[in-house]
Each structure stands twice: as C-alpha cells, then as structure tokens.
C-alpha cells in the first residue's frame, strides 16, 4: 500500500528523520497562517506531479490559497488531487538520493544512495550509485551508514546526519513493514541541515494484520478496482476487448500471451490467485460483466475443486448478468467432461486446452 507524501513524512518524523514543517489541507479555507514561504504540493500516488503543475510556490496566505485552489481537484495522470501539502520551502544547497527496498536476488533489504538526487535518479550511471545489501541476520550496523556517507563524500557534519537517517530508514522499514522507503531528494539546506524533501513509502499489504492503523486509510481506486480488492482478486484494465478470468498470475499472463498469438487483445483481466474456489469464480464473473468486455474468456486450472462444482458457480453467476456476451470457458481438472457439458448446455463456448480457448476467444473478439 502506497502512502501519500504527507503520511510517509509523518512516519519519517515518528522515526526521527527530519522533514520540513508542513500542513495538509483538503480545502483552501483551512489555510490560516504559513511558516514562511511554502511549496504547495499535490498529494497523489503517482510520480511526475511537478511537471503536471501539481507543485506551486507561495509566499503569502493568499498566494497559498490560490495555489491550493488550482491544485485541489487537479487530475494528474488519472489521479484526482484531494489534498495538498503546504510545506516550508527549503533553501536547497544539494539534492541527494536515499532509498531502501526489497531485493529479490539478494533476498533482503537493499540500500541505495546517490549524490545525484532529484528527478533523473533512474538514469544515474552505475558508478554514481551505491547499492548495499543488508545481511538480515546482521541488521543495520554503523559501518553501513559510514559507507553511505563516505560514498556521498559529505563533510563531517552532514555525514553524521546522513548516517543517522540511514539507520532510521532501516528501523522504519523493519518496524513499519515497509517494502519501499525512498527519500528523493534528500536535501542538504544552505545552512547545512539534512532534510527529507520528498518521501515515498510503500507498506507491505501482507503485513496489514499487524498495522491496524491503515484500516481506515482510503486508496485511490476505481469502483471496480475497489470491489476486486475487497474480493482479493487482481484487477487490471487494459486496452483490448477480451475479458480474461484465470487463476494464478502466471496462468493469467500465459492466457494473455496465448490470446495475443491468435490476434486477440485483453481489455481487462481478473486473476483469482492460485485458487479454484467456485464462489470466487462466480464473483469474478459478475465483476467482469460490469467491465463490459466483448468476449469473456474463463480459464480455470482446477487443483482441489471438481470441474462440475466450478461450472455450477459459473452458471449461477451468468443468471444475474444482464448484458449477454459470448463466454469461452475452459475448466481443467477432475470431472472435466461433466463440467464442459454443463457449460455448453448453457450456451457457453467450451474449450479443452489453453490454446483452443485463446483461439476461440480471439475469433469471437474480432467478429
């Protein structure tokens, strides 16, 4: 779960990482005083808000209200701005980059640092970027902070501050179950202070059971996305017209690849996860019908449930679906024949293999 900048900064402050003074508002009327010149920053869960006009300076309360009015409601790459952060403007001397994330290959946390912080961090050449794997059994040790400070070639006073921040990023990631903590830029101000200019934190959604504080936090989701999330179904909107329902991320992607081979294009996909639970199939069918695809392709590889049971769930689901579209159904597993018969009797297009299903669905979609 991605946190808004202001929320991420609250967490950073809680763990002792310096952030600029600031205030979040959802209406210009809430702005009464300023701590000095500020930046008014759109709170959206997408990058590139600066270029989109989502960050504006303000010197006075009136200017701040004006900037907030302009930004609130602004649509930034599909995300509507509901809140702005008014933040004391920093006198920037240098912009660094600090990040910590999960590294699959090294199976642990990876610390990243660069003296070239700011917008173009992704294109920083390898030798300008320090990547340090942290041994999970060792945990954070001071030498790690020292190596970061030394790589960044900081004078002693800033080195000490950065070492402190590195240790706190680690502590934050561990104790808050963050899978990403990123400060870009990490600002060195003209008076020598080191402050988090921006903050990105992603909390591991699998760890929510021990972070009840996020229960009320709302996410930027479309109604369909919200429904899918509630059902623990992965929902992705694409630009084709075939609605794909499959179980398992790999199988779903393989279904997309197969459709593509036969000239079809997916418009949305629903991944049930590794389950073949008939109830979940039924719910996915209903959700899919709301997305209005031209064809639905159902590809379920049955593990422990019988095919006829899954077929029964599908039949129940289509009873409630109003806009009738062609449905190509392929259910693999025990009692396969029986399931197929049930579905074709109900007017669906049965298929026995993945290729066959992909071919039939593509053909229907191009009709």
């Amino acid at each position, binding site marked *: 779960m991605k946190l808004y900048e202001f929320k991420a900064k609250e967490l950073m402050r809680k763990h002792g990482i310096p952030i600029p003074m600031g205030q979040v508002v959802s209406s210009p009327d809430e702005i009464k005083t300023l701590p000095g010149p500020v930046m008014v920053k759109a709170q959206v869960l997408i*990058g590139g808000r600066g270029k989109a006009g989502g960050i504006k300076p303000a010197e006075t309360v009136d200017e701040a209200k004006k900037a907030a009015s302009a930004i609130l409601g602004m649509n930034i790459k599909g995300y509507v701005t509901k809140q702005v952060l008014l933040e004391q403007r920093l006198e920037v001397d240098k912009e660094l980059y600090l*990040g*910590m*994330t*999960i*590294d*699959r*290959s090294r*199976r*642990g*946390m*990876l610390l*990243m640092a660069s003296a070239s912080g700011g917008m173009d961090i*992704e294109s*920083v050449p*390898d030798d300008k970027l320090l*990547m340090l794997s942290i*041994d*999970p*059994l060792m945990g954070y040790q001071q030498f790690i902070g020292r190596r970061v400070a030394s790589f960044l070639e900081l004078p002693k006073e800033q080195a000490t501050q950065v070492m402190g921040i590195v240790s706190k990023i680690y502590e934050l*990631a*561990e104790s808050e*179950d963050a*899978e*990403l903590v*990123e400060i*870009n830029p990490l600002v060195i101000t003209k008076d020598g202070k080191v402050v988090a200019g921006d903050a*990105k934190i*992603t909390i*591991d959604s*699998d*760890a929510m*059971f*021990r972070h009840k504080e996020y229960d009320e936090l709302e996410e930027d989701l479309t109604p369909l996305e919200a429904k899918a999330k509630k059902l623990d179904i992965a929902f992705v909107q*694409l630009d084709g017209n075939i609605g794909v329902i499959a179980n*398992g*991320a*790999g*199988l779903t*992607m*393989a279904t*997309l*690849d*197969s*459709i*593509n*081979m036969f000239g079809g294009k997916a418009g949305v996909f629903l991944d049930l*996860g*590794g389950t073949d639970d008939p109830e979940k199939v039924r719910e996915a069918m209903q959700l899919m019908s709301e997305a209005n695809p031209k064809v639905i392709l159902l590809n379920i*590889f*049955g*593990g*422990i449930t019988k095919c006829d049971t899954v077929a029964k769930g599908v039949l129940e689901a289509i009873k409630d679906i109003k806009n009738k579209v062609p449905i190509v159904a392929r259910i*693999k*597993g*025990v009692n396969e024949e029986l399931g197929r018969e049930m579905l074709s009797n109900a007017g669906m297009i049965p298929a026995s*293999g*993945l*290729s066959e299903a*992909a071919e039939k669905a593509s053909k229907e979609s191009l009709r």
Partner: protein
Amino acid sequence: MAVIVDSNTTVVVQGITGYQGTYHSKAMKDFGTKVVAGVTPGKAGQTVNDIPVFNSVAEAVAKTGANTSCIFVPAPFTRDSVMEAIDAGIKTIVAVTEHVPVHDAIHFVAVAQSRGVVLIGPNCPGLASPGLGKVGILPSKIFMKGDVGVVSRSGTLTYEIVNAMTEQGIGQSTCVGIGGDRVPGTNFVDVLAKFQDDPLTRKIVMVGEIGGTAEEEAAEFIKTNVTKPVVAYIAGRTAPPGKRMGHAGAIIARGRGTAESKITALEAAGVKVARIPTDVPELIR
C-alpha cells in the same frame, strides 16, 4: 536418490487440522509420500487421515523421525512455524502459505540458509517426484514418471505445462514450484544445480515470469553450469508494464526484468524459449 524428495523423506504437516492441511496430507499420502506426523498446538493425541498429531514439531520429530515439513498455517504464523521446524532439526521445508509479510520471509529465509535448511516457498505449490512422493499441493493427477525436471515460479501455470507434457507422453523426474514471492527460500539457480546433478533428470523445463531478475540469473547459471537441455517459457510477454514502485524498482532492475530481457538472456545461454505454454512439450520432446 532424487531431487529434494526421496525414499527417505518423512513428512510432518504443520497445520494439519485445518482444511488445507487435512486435504493435502491425504493427497500426499495417496501420492506415496510418507506423511508420518502432523502438528497443531493443543491438538496432540488426535489423528488426521490416520496421521498422529503433536503439539510441537520437536515432539513430532522426537516421536516419528520426520525430516521434512509441509507448512499450511495462516500467514501471520508462518514465520513462527518455519522457525519451529528449523529449530527442531527439520532439513527440508515447504511453506505453502501465501501472503506472508516480506520482512518475515527475509528473516526466516536467512535463518534457513544459515542452518543449511532447504526451504521452498513461501507462497509455493511445493514439489513432486512421480513415483517417490510429493510435498505440497500440486494436483497429483497431472504427473507421469519420466526424466524431465520442471522448475517454476508459478502455480497453476506449472500445472498447465506439466499437464500438457503428460498428455503428450512426456514424464517428469521432479517438478519444483518455487513460488512467486518477493523473497523465495529457493531460487531457480538452486533447483537448476540440483537437476544438473540428478541422474534421474535428463532435460529441464523452466517456467518464469516477468519482473525481478531471477530468470536472468538463471540464464547466467545455465550458461556456465548446466549441460542438460533446457526449455523455458516466460509468462507475460504481452502483459502491460506494471505500476512502478517509486524509483527504487527501476534502479535495481536497470533495464532487466522485462520478458524481452529474460528471453534474450536465456536464448544466449542456449535455452529454447517457447512463445506460449502449449509449445513447451514439443520443444522438450
């Protein structure tokens, strides 16, 4: 001798009294696996599918000599269960549970490594060696004894491919589903090394996905260490690029992680790459 599972494998099922534990302990037994014990705290003395239940893994090991564990406990308790198995001297652990917090996984994967324990998962279907046994949840009926080793990051997609192989008369030596989690106990490379050394495995099928760099690392390993023929399929060639995790993901990946990067790396290592899963049997034949 086979890969990971062999005739000496004796399994304890952690979380045996739950729905999945009960179902799959029977399925494992039916597949020929020696399931000798179950563990559910507070339920010692019961039996499930004629398998005795104990309060702790330590007790189960003391009483039955189990050397392998299959874990079905809910995600919040998985770290504890893996640690308990390691502490009790279990040498092979299959953690089926999905949605395990990644910081928990980082911790127990590191502890398993430090103790020389083979850990598969979390969030994985486990492994099956037709004729010898299985540990995990792979559907028994799709397998056929043979000489192809299958390793996969995916669950149902693996079943799809194994099923297609079996339908075309191509059997498997061992099939390992390493799981798609962010921090897996066992990687492609670990399994490829075992297949290379396994006399029962003559050919290898590797099923990958977009994201991460595990397939690229596998390609590098294959280039220098694997002499057996390898066929791969990478799911997601036509999937849209995922939403980004800040800059950090892009920084780590540095252009790797896409289907293209993976396929190029594998082909450069002499691996035949299938365009769609149903092409795999033909290429491995």
